[in-house]
């Protein structure tokens, strides 16, 4: 019960209070690039969630069961980026073979996830937060993905409506997206006192 409670707290905290996009600035590139349409944003969010959970768990295992006992923490970054690249490659191959329709709709986003800083960032934050157990690592990385999905979907919804708005010419495109993101970050600050 104790464990379940702490896992739930960790999940809520990583989805809302420590949202990767709004408080850690991770995954901003796809956030600006893909958030034009809500269905694309949702697809991207799901792909990121999937890869993030997978690589969060894998890097935690490698870090705790292989690198730490051998005293090889120096090789952490190289190992992490290789694991993420391999995970993305595997997911891509699997989807291509078994769910081609989904593969088509993900398009070029999948390879891009390798260099999505949110995935590597989350793996590194798991180290910084001192995540103690595998189950905690899985829950936190899943929560990180959900948080990213929520952020990118809210943004896509706003941007779909913004097409009907008369934005000053200089602010069109990326600038107004960043300003909107700033206001959203302000809103998300309201969650700070929740836990």
């Amino acid at each position, binding site marked *: 019960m104790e464990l379940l409670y702490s896992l739930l707290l960790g999940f809520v905290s990583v989805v809302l209070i420590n949202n990767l996009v709004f408080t850690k600035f991770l995954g901003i590139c796809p956030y600006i690039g893909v958030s034009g349409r809500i269905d694309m944003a949702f697809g991207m969010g799901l792909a990121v969630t999937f890869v993030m959970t997978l690589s969060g768990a894998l890097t935690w295992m490698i870090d705790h069961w292989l690198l730490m006992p051998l005293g090889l923490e120096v090789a*952490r970054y190289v190992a992490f980026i290789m694991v993420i690249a391999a995970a993305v490659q595997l997911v891509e191959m699997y989807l291509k073979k078994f769910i081609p329709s989904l593969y088509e709709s993900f398009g070029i986003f999948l390879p891009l996830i390798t260099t999505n800083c949110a995935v590597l960032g989350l793996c590194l934050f798991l180290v*910084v937060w001192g995540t103690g157990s595998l189950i905690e690592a899985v829950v936190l990385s899943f929560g990180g993905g959900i948080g990213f999905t929520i952020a990118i979907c809210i943004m896509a919804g706003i941007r779909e409506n913004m097409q009907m708005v008369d934005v000053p010419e200089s602010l069109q495109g990326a600038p107004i997206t960043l*300003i909107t993101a700033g206001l959203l970050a302000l809103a998300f600050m309201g969650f700070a006192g929740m836990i």
Partner: protein
Amino acid sequence: MAATPDGQNIYAEAVATGLWREIPVFRMLLGTCPTLAVTAAVKPALTMGLCVIFVLVCSNIMVSLMRKGLRPHVRILLFTLTIAAFVTVADLFLRAYQPAMSEALGPYVPLIIVNCIIIWRAEARASNSGVLVSIVDGLAMGTGFTIALCILAVIREILGTGRLFEIQILPTTFPAWAAMGMPVGAFLTFGFVLGFINFLKRKRV
């Protein structure tokens, strides 16, 4: 002296590209994540900029040296591993000589690995140019990135705390805008600076 197809000096072209024509943050919208994360004050921004210059120059040298043996399908993997190795060096150096700064920057130093600017330069310049040009390109691009970071950091630090380099420069009666030091300030400042640059660009045309 080597020259580009339109007869320009190749080194001058690299410098102009990095510092103005394709200045990474403002023109290409690359490397946005560190841009937002480390610009709450000038000092971390400058440190981050120097780290990026170091990694960019080193990885450009390496990629340029091995450009003849590159195969298409392992290219990106090799780039990433090279970058990760140099980022580890930079991270260890920072931890040894600037422990407080290393603590403050946290995971954003290792996150240089996935900074798109570096892999973009490896792909666009170093994998098809000589070592010297690649070094110049790395220096120019890195400096362009650092300048962009500093512009944002100066605005945010002055408005957020009334200080610059931790020295009081605004009168103490100035109410510090605490929000500028928070994520909100990062997004808003970046958005408005980009808008201002677009405005200048439109006026010129």
